């Protein structure tokens, strides 16, 4: 673990976040959008894990624990997101988010 510098690991996180954000901002397919959200979120979770590893116990354990909780949270988020996808597909026959604009009214 000590081989890797904090900076390089944070660079990985930043890259993942950038990829996720790019996906969020450019994709129109709802499922791809969800995947992009997950990528961005994992960047944040990774940060918790790095810092936990570098801090050591006992502070490190709470970082690991938060990471696990966040993974669970991400899973539920995806579940909700997929439910929305299904509902959208049933009502509009398409999962293109560019067409789902009726909320503005």
């Amino acid at each position, binding site marked *: 673990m000590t081989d890797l510098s904090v900076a390089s690991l944070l660079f990985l996180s930043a890259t993942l976040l950038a990829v996720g*954000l790019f996906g*969020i*901002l*450019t*994709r*129109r397919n709802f499922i791809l*959008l969800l995947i992009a959200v997950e990528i961005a979120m994992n960047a944040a979770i990774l940060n918790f894990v790095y810092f936990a590893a570098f801090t050591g116990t006992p502070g490190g354990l709470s970082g690991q624990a938060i990471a696990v909780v966040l993974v669970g949270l991400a899973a539920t988020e995806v579940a909700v997101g997929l439910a929305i996808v299904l509902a959208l597909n049933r009502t509009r026959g398409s999962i293109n*988010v*560019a067409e*789902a*604009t*009726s*909320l*503005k*009214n």
Partner: protein
Amino acid sequence: MAVSFVIVGLLGTRLKRLEYGGWVAVGFAGASMVVGVLVAAAEMLHPGHYSDANFTWLHLPGSPGTFPNGFSLVIGVLVDPISALMLLVVTVVGFLVMLYSIGYMHADRGLPRYYAELSLFLTAMTGLVLADNLLEFFLFWELVGVCSYFLIGFYYEKPSAASAAKEAFLVTRIGDVLFLLGIFIYFSVYATSGGGAGWAASGFLFVQGSTPFLAATMGANTPLLTVAGLMMLAGAAGKSAQFPLHAWLPDAMEGPTTVSALIHAATMVAAGVYLLAVASLFLGFTPDDRLAIVAVGGFTTFFAATMAVVHPDIKRVIAYSTISQLGYMVLAVGAGFAMVGLYHLFTHAFFKALLFLAAGSVIHAVGTQDLFKMGGLRKSMRLTSIAFAVGALSLSGIPPFAGFWSKDDILASVYAAARSNPAYWPFLILAYATVFLTAYYIFRAWYLAFSGEHARDATLPHAHEGPWTMRVPLLALSALAVVAGLFAFAPSFASLFSIGGGSGVPPTYSATELVLSAVSVGLGAGGILLATALWGNGRVYVLAPDSTLQPLRTILLQRYYVKAFYDWVGLTLVYGGSRIADWFERYVIDGTIHGFERLGTASSNALRRGQSGLVSDYASYVVLGVIGLLLLLLFVAPIVLATVGVP
């Protein structure tokens, strides 16, 4: 004694069972009459005895400085001489009227409502006379007011009855609100200064232990107390239909005649006089207050009697007569003879209830209230005609009928008061003039209804007496109307008229007073003779159309335009004011609100253009926002902090 308190206090529970009908109500009214008579008898056996049973409902602790003594809200039952007297009147008349109702009301719908309301009224009225403090008094005062409203509006499907009920409620409400204000003033005077021996702190109790909490006689005018006394007068004027709050009582005749007899002749309207008597004993009136009370009473006496002279409706004639007689009582209380006023209240309750019930008997028989359609009823309704005549003689003040003693006592008392205070003279003269008018108008009514050969309107049904339930109360009240005035000559009964010193009851007859009596009897007899000359034997006196009295008659029939004035106040002042308020509300207040509303709509519409509804767009706004915040934090914040000098 204490047992009868408890029983009387608990009589309210009888209301629960009224669905069973009139006889239940009659039974309970009879029971309360027995209790009332027992209480009065016990009070007579122990003259000047005060029994008070109460508990403190709420206690507010005092705070030093502004409110030193604290305040208690007390609910209790007090039997003192005058409340025993009032209890006697209320329960006896209440029972007789209730019994009469069985015959009179048998054909009506809504009888459970009628008996329930009448019983509620009796409960409230007994509570009123037994209240041991001013606030409890006010509570029951309002309760009898609302019962009066219900019962005037008993025939609520008739628009005139509904509006009469509303009028009675609103007009008495003016008096009630002023009465309440008066209580507030007394509270502020007695609770904050610690004066009045902490009277307000004890919850305005009328007794302290077993002695009455009598007010000191006030020789001088205190502005605040004068105002408070005037407020008491206003409350009494509203309830007892004194000028200028008198107009509701004639209209209240829209209710059943039994209600008119009980509430609007014998008991509730007398509550105003009772209030004045209680206030003069326990609160005290300043000399200015007394003059105001004398003025209101004396003027009303005459004013109402003039209107009775021309009216064609049998019930309204008696109603005006009631206002006029209440004026006598108010006059006596104002002149400083509260007990004499209550004496007249006592006799008046019986003979006026008698007149109303006799009139009710007539109305029941012929189905109209118009005197000019009746006539010749003497033959078919002998008992009623005699009962009405007894009531009329008593009202006219012809000895030895009850009304003579008390009315004469009032005139003699006011004469005595006028000798020491010349400002009372005009009102004494009005009171004497009224004796003449009274005898005239009541015998005019008698002649129109009972004398002559046959009814002037041939379409009226053949008249007959009512059932025994109607005849018995007429007989009982006739007997009382004859002898009630004499009761006061029994020393034990006269003790009911004494709280704190001389009462003036029963009347004493010195040489001056004999002359005064002779004058009043002469005036009464003159009135009767005039009525006989004009209306006797079925004659109808028609005023020539070009007579100079014709405009006067119009004014009287229009009731001095007081009603018109009420309407003018209502329509022009209140409605006009409301129109202005409405305009203000519509255009200024609503305008402002609508302005904000339009501003909100317009700005929302402007902002709405920026909404694409695209999720990606919102996400990019979030990202841009976060980047902007970061830039602020990293680059702008240090510069700002450095500038203001924070390291």
